[in-house]
Structure formats: structure tokens, C-alpha cells
């Protein structure tokens, strides 16, 4: 059974991080260059970590499956990044950001981690501004803010609707600077396919070059995974098509525990699904909820009427009605479930009935069309490209879609998994968002982990490793891992069945969405746990992967990733089945209050579930880490 020691320092909440930083071990500057660190992924967490570790003097190797580190999916984050700067003088503080995030996460995250996140949030903004990130500014030249869900202050910094892009390009510029300084070896088009464990510690990875097909071994003193979330297990999501679970799944199969995989975030404002051919869903930023009002007709009969002909008294602005204190800016899980409920009642709009209106008519009256265009022009353009409709003239139609995953590999306070030497950052870990992430917090966490946490905490581990003690790539563990990768690749190419990979991905996605989406039941999950293994068996018998292993072969890449999703999806459903409560993004229909809100069970489920691999075909072990709330009271979330 895995040992889950959170290593949360003792002492008052606000002092823990400061105290920890002064107590953990350091590596002296001359020794740093003797250590090699592998960073997998180049999103916000990966590139900020790689750049910062290189600045400190460590030798860094950065692996990214994209053709350039600038293309990692952090780039697509639209709305903004939270920080407790209190530049608006509206009562914000580190404590408030901490509290909002803990509450937003439905009391399922670690207090100490979240407090540290809130503390370093202010440094992130400083760092990014100094890099030349073009944040929105006021006329006086100072930084502007806007509001996001789950908060009653304006603490979100933004760069038009492209905040993720600008922050990522900032981190990419820092990464590029250290590459040109010779401190980072960049491996683009390189997919990590296994972690190598030597004497119980992570000491390397196996990589496939996606262009040449070459499989190579890489040794290091520590391995950092910053490989993003697993939302594509649902097939249709707001993720990039390439986003996958492979890196963390393969680490799981090498002994790293997978924590809370059932915590998936369904974002309330995405463009609805249109057809079977669809490959992705597009997000309409949460920032739109600052000025847009969400409604459906009060009566079913009105749902197909043109929206303008539905008179004001016949409209149900249901979020404003149900949650008057937060209104349209209630947290994502709450807003998504409310949308599902009104659609289930038959009041959904659009051809499919799976949609609600996000209406800007009031905002246009108040700010003028130009004012709305300045704030959201690019989002309205995206909406128009996809739907051929103008949101200036008629309300947007939106519906919830999979957007983020709070679960991920288990890590301690130092961001190290239960496998020593294996660190996990950003969306790939489980640590800071509990059962629901608040808007504008993903960018904050990715950069906090990379710029301001791992540079300190990795030293504590490396100081215990003798310089020069990393194993050679000729060690038998490396050979075994390489053989493992080679066999998996050859097996996929050798099936020579009839169905393309995409068919399996679509079918898996349907199972997941239907049985493990916004509302989950015991029966539904048990059904999914029968369907997924059957689909997996079919995949390994009938999938068709054309081409060879020695060239760029996108079918092969996709097959490997979907093969992993077909295993991971089962664990996700199992986790959802065993968590007999509702919390945040995990909603079990059996556990709700009469008004449809989440009913948590803190006594029995006030813990992290960290699953431990027991071998192929074996039921994984469910370890738990209790969440001891010392400073906050676990209470029923109230946004009313």
C-alpha cells in the first residue's frame, strides 16, 4: 500500500510556506550544474519550471510532443489569471483568495497548498508584467482587473480574451532565453511513453520521436511531469485534440497514485454540439458572464420561438433567480448543473434542445455595441465563425462541456508524487482545486507550481541525491522500459483490424458523457464499468492503425493515447462510483439536497482518494489521504 504523507508543514496557515522554505534543504550553486532534471510538457507549468530551474543552474531537458513549446494547450485559456493584489481596493487579500478557492473547490483540496497558491499569486503578476506580458491596463497605465465566478472581488488580470496565450508566450520566452543560454536542451516532437524507475525512484523516461519514430532513453536525477489534464477521455471537450492522459497514466502504471480522477470540470459556457463528425467543443470565456445574462423561456412551448419574441416576463434568468448573491457569476459546477436541469425540464433552446441563451442585449444597451466589442470582440468573432450567428443581434446559445480536470497524480506539499523523484505540476496533479476549480485559477496554479514552488521544493529532494549518482541509460530498468514501449507500438500496428481509432474514441466519449458526466448514478457508473472494458477489448481486436513506426504516424500516436484513455476511463468511473457523495464537479444524483444542490459527506468522504495500480486486470487499490481542515470549517457552499 502506497504511503501518502502530505508533508504539510506544521504551524499557522499563513506561516507554513515561509517556514517550509527556510527549513528545506538547499543545493549549493556549484552542485546544481551536476544535477539533470527532465521536464515533460511545456505549458505554463512545464515551461515556467524548466526556465526557472535552468536559471538556478540545473541542467534541464524539456520534452514536448508539440512541434514547438509555444503550442501547449495553456495557450487556449481565454479569460484571465487570479491574484490577490487588491489593486482595486475592493477588500481582496491572500486570505480571501485562499478562502474563495477552498470554498469553490467544495472543501476537497488541501488547505496548505491552496494558501500557498494564494500567497504566490501576487508574485506571478509581477513576474509576467516584467516579461512584457501585455496585460490589460487602465488609462493611468496601471493594470486592469475583471471579475470571475465564485468571487465577490475583481482580482482577475487579463490580456483581452487571450490571457493563456500571453502568459504562455511569456513563459516560452523565458524558456527560449535559457535554451539559447545552453541551459535547456529542448526536445520537440517528442512524446514521453514511459517513466523509468530505478531502486524505487524516478530516474528517467522513454521517448518516441514523433517525426522519425526513434525511441530513446533519457536519464536524470529527477523527473517532472507537467503534461496537462485528461478531459479528452470524454472525446468531445474544450481541450486541444492532442491533449492526453498518456504521460500520467504510464506513471500511474509505474506506481504513482492517481488522485480523485472523478473530479472533472464541466464548463457552463461552451458552444453546443451540432453533429457526429464534431471533433471539439469551443469555450466561450467565463468573462462573458460579467455582462451576459443567462436565460431560457419559462414555458416549454416557447423554446423554439425566436428569442427576441419571448417577452421579458416569459424569460427565466435562472441563475439570477436561484443564486441572487452571485447571479450569473456563480461557480462553474453550479452553473453547469443548473443549465442541465432547465434543459432536462424541456426548456432548452436550439435545434437539439441542449442549449441556453447567453444574452448581451442589456450590456449592449448599457455599454453600446462598441463597448461590448472592446471587451469581448474576439469571442463574438469566434462564436460567429462557428455558428454563423451574430451575438450582437441575437443571444449566444451555450451548453456545458468538459473543460478541465481537477484530479491527477497525487503529490505531497513539495509536489512530489509517492514515487520519489517524480514531481507533478499544473493540471496533471490533483492538489489545489479540490472538486471544482474556480475560473482564472488554472493559469495561477500552473505558473505558481513552475515559477515559485518547484524551484524550492525540488532542492529538498536533490540534496539527498549524491551528485553524479544518476543511473546510466544502459541500466536494465531502461532497457525493460524501452522494450515495453516498443512492444506496445508494434502491437498497435500489428492488429490490422478495420475500425479507425477515432471511432473508439467517440464511443468511449459517449459512454463517459452519458454515465459519468454532469450527473452520475450508481447504476449508470456500473453500466459504464461494463461497457468500457468491452470497448477496450474490441479496440485491441479490431482497431486499424495504418503506416509504420519509423515515420510521422498520427494514427499511431492517436492509437496509443486512446488505448490509455480506454483504461483510464474505467478508473475514472470506478472513482466516481466509490465516492458516495456529491461535491463540486462530481455530482451523484443519489446525494443531493431537495433543491438539487450537492450533498457532501465530510465524515466518510472528507478525504483524497488516491488509486494505486495493482497490475493489468486487477482492481486498483483505493488509498486515502484525510483532509484535516485546521483553519476553515467545511460547510455547505452557499452562493445564494
Amino acid at each position, binding site marked *: 500500500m502506497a504511503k501518502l504523507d502530505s508533508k504539510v508543514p506544521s504551524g499557522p496557515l499563513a506561516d507554513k510556506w515561509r517556514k517550509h522554505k527556510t527549513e528545506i534543504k538547499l543545493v549549493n550553486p556549484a552542485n546544481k550544474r551536476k544535477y539533470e532534471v527532465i521536464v515533460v510538457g511545456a505549458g505554463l507549468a512545464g515551461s*515556467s519550471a524548466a526556465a*526557472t530551474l535552468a*536559471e538556478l543552474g540545473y541542467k534541464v531537458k524539456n520534452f514536448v510532443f508539440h512541434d*514547438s513549446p*509555444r503550442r501547449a*494547450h495553456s*495557450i*487556449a485559456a481565454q479569460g484571465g489569471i487570479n491574484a490577490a493584489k487588491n489593486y482595486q481596493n475592493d477588500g481582496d487579500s491572500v486570505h480571501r483568495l485562499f478562502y474563495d478557492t477552498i470554498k469553490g473547490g467544495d472543501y476537497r483540496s488541501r488547505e496548505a497548498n491552496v494558501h500557498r497558491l494564494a500567497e504566490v499569486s501576487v*508574485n506571478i*503578476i*509581477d*513576474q*509576467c*508584467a*516584467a*516579461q*512584457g506580458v*501585455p496585460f*490589460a*491596463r487602465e*488609462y*493611468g*497605465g*496601471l493594470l486592469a482587473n475583471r471579475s470571475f465566478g465564485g468571487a465577490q472581488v475583481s482580482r482577475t488580470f487579463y*490580456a*483581452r480574451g487571450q490571457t493563456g*496565450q500571453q502568459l504562455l508566450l511569456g513563459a*516560452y*520566452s*523565458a524558456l*527560449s*532565453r535559457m535554451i*539559447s543560454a545552453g541551459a535547456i536542451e529542448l526536445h520537440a516532437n517528442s512524446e514521453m511513453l514511459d517513466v523509468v524507475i530505478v531502486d524505487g525512484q524516478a530516474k528517467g523516461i522513454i521517448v518516441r520521436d514523433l517525426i522519425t519514430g526513434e525511441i530513446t532513453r533519457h536519464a536524470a536525477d529527477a523527473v517532472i511531469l507537467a503534461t496537462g489534464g485528461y478531459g479528452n477521455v470524454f472525446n468531445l471537450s474544450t481541450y486541444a*485534440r492532442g491533449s492526453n492522459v498518456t504521460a500520467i497514466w504510464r506513471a500511474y502504471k509505474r506506481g504513482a497514485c492517481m488522485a480523485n480522477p472523478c473530479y472533472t470540470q464541466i464548463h457552463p459556457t461552451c458552444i453546443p454540439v*451540432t*453533429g457526429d*463528425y*464534431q*471533433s*471539439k467543443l*469551443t469555450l466561450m470565456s467565463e468573462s462573458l458572464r460579467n455582462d451576459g445574462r443567462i436565460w431560457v423561456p419559462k414555458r416549454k412551448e416557447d423554446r423554439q420561438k425566436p428569442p*427576441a*419574441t419571448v417577452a421579458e416576463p416569459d424569460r427565466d434568468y435562472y441563475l439570477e433567480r436561484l443564486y441572487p448573491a452571485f447571479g450569473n457569476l456563480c461557480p462553474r459546477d453550479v452553473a453547469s448543473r443548473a443549465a442541465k436541469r432547465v434543459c432536462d425540464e424541456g426548456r432548452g433552446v*436550439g*435545434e437539439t434542445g441542449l442549449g441556453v441563451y447567453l444574452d448581451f442585449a442589456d450590456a449592449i444597451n448599457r455599454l453600446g455595441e462598441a463597448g461590448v466589442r472592446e471587451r469581448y470582440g474576439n469571442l463574438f*468573432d*469566434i462564436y460567429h465563425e462557428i*455558428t454563423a*450567428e451574430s451575438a450582437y443581434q*441575437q443571444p449566444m*446559445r451555450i451548453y456545458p462541456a468538459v473543460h478541465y480536470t481537477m484530479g491527477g497524480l497525487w503529490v505531497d506539499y513539495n509536489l512530489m508524487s509517492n514515487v520519489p523523484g517524480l514531481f507533478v505540476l499544473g493540471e496533471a496533479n490533483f492538489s489545489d482545486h479540490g472538486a471544482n476549480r474556480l475560473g482564472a485559477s488554472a493559469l495561477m496554479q500552473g505558473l505558481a507550481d513552475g515559477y*515559485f514552488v518547484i*524551484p524550492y521544493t525540488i532542492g529538498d529532494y536533490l540534496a539527498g541525491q549524491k551528485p553524479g549518482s544518476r543511473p546510466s541509460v544502459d541500466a536494465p530498468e531502461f532497457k525493460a522500459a524501452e522494450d515495453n514501449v516498443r512492444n506496445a507500438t508494434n502491437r498497435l500496428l500489428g492488429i490490422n483490424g478495420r*475500425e479507425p481509432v*477515432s471511432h473508439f474514441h467517440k464511443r468511449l466519449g459517449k459512454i463517459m458523457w452519458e454515465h459519468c458526466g454532469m450527473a452520475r448514478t450508481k447504476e449508470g457508473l456500473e453500466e459504464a464499468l461494463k461497457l468500457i472494458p468491452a470497448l477496450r477489448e474490441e479496440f485491441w481486436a479490431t482497431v*486499424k492503425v*495504418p503506416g509504420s513506426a519509423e*515515420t*510521422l504516424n498520427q*494514427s499511431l500516436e492517436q492509437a496509443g493515447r486512446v488505448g490509455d484513455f480506454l483504461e483510464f476511463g474505467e478508473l475514472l468511473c470506478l472513482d466516481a462510483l466509490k465516492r458516495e457523495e456529491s461535491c463540486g464537479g462530481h455530482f451523484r444524483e443519489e446525494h443531493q439536497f431537495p433543491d438539487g444542490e450537492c450533498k457532501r459527506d465530510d465524515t466518510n468522504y472528507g478525504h483524497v482518494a488516491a488509486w494505486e495500480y495493482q497490475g493489468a486486470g486487477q482492481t486498483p487499490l483505493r488509498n486515502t489521504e484525510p483532509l484535516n481542515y485546521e483553519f476553515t470549517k467545511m460547510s455547505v457552499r452557499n452562493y445564494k
Partner: protein
Amino acid sequence: MVAETKSKSLSITLRVWRQAGPAAPGGFVDYAAKNLSSDMSFLEMLDVVNDELTMKGEEPIAFAHDCREGICGTCSCMINGKPHGPGHGIATCQTYMRSFTDGDVIVVEPFRARAFPLIKDLVVDRSAFDKIIQAGGFISVRTGAAPDANSIPVPKPDADLAMDAAACIGCGACVAACKNASAMLFVAAKVSQLGLFPQGQPERDSRVLSMVGTMDSLGFGNCTNQYECSAACPKVISHDFIARMNRDYLRASVRATFKPASASAAGGGG
């Protein structure tokens, strides 16, 4: 009031450049794509064609893509001779089949530029762009060394203009559209963004000299003011930034010639 648009069905012929690798001979191959929905994206159409090819036992068309919402810059290709296809200010992934007519022949090719060597079919190697950024597309600030963000006010017009330049997604359409395969718009966008900030001033001269020098050495051509780059840019980045960069380059060149440098540029002491 605009009604919800109804999707239509269309069939097209896809004329695609197929090339197994950089050294292999390439050529156009026609594929029939039938009964497509006009609501389908161009890349979803390619997905459907590829699935059909797979089921027939043929190798699918390799094409670069990832976010499919016009921000990662991965998708490329020329559609009917235009980088990112017929739409203005959008990437290939934001192109929808409603832009085409039933019966159309659609010609799809990779980006063509010496500095973007072909990898396979529609996929080219754009790592030259990374090398240009590594040559100076950054402000040297160590993590943790930054002053409070509001201690450096930036006039809003400068910040807005910097954001216009920073919108570049690094897709390479500007290069593909240029008869000289010049990367001037790409380089100018980054040089301008950083040069508009107070914190970008210390390295302003060295940045522009180094980035332009690297661009030249990587085999990109020069600018002859045709502005095809801006017209093809999915983020409609203005060619005015090229003029701005040329001013910066000239000034930096002159200053590099006449500016006395400290004899003890490198530290040492202690």
C-alpha cells in the same frame, strides 16, 4: 432577428499534396468527400476523409492541428492557394465547410518556404521560428527578480498596441504568403511588442539586431512591401510593425557603430 442557420449538405473533391517524406517524390491526389455538413470544420472534413482512407487500408493524410480554435498556431496548409484558406483573419481550423460550394474542387498544399522544410504531406517543420525567438525574443528577467507590477506604468495606447503585436500565433502563414518567404511580420511582431514596454528597453537594440540576423541566416527572404503577410495573418497583425522594426533596426545599427562600450562589460570582482 437573424434565424438560427440550418446546415446544408455538400460534396467536394479534395486535391491534396501527398509526400511520404522530405526525400520522397510528392504529387497531388484527388479524393471525393461526399455528403458533408456545411457546419463541419475544414479539419473535421479531413478527419472524415482520413477515417475513410484508414478503412480502405490507405495511409491517412498527415496534417498539423491541435487546439482547433485558432490560437495554438499548429494548423497550417494552403487551401486553394491561400494560407489558412479563404476566410479573413482566421486559421485553417476555423474554416468551415459553409465557405465552400457543392461540387467545388479544393486544392490543399503544405506551406512552401525554404526555411520550413517539408516533413510529410501537409506537415512542415517550423522550428526556425523557435530559433528566432531564442535569438532574443524575450526580456531577460530571472524568476523572482521582478518589481511590483504596478511600479512600471505603461500608457494604455502602448499596451494596446503591444497586445495587437503579441496576438501572433506563430503559424507561419506570413511566410507562406510572401513571395520572398520572409519572416518579417513574425519578427516585427515580437520586436514591437517588447519594444513598446519600458521593461523591454535595455535589450531593445541587441534584440532587433540578433533576431533579424538569425532570421536572415535561417533562409527567410527579405521584405519587398507587398503586405501579403498581413492579409494572410489569422490575427490580422499589421505590416506597420515591419516599418516600426525597420526603424528600430536602423537605429540599433547606427548606435552599435557609434556607441562606446564599456571596456569591462563582463563582471568579475569579489
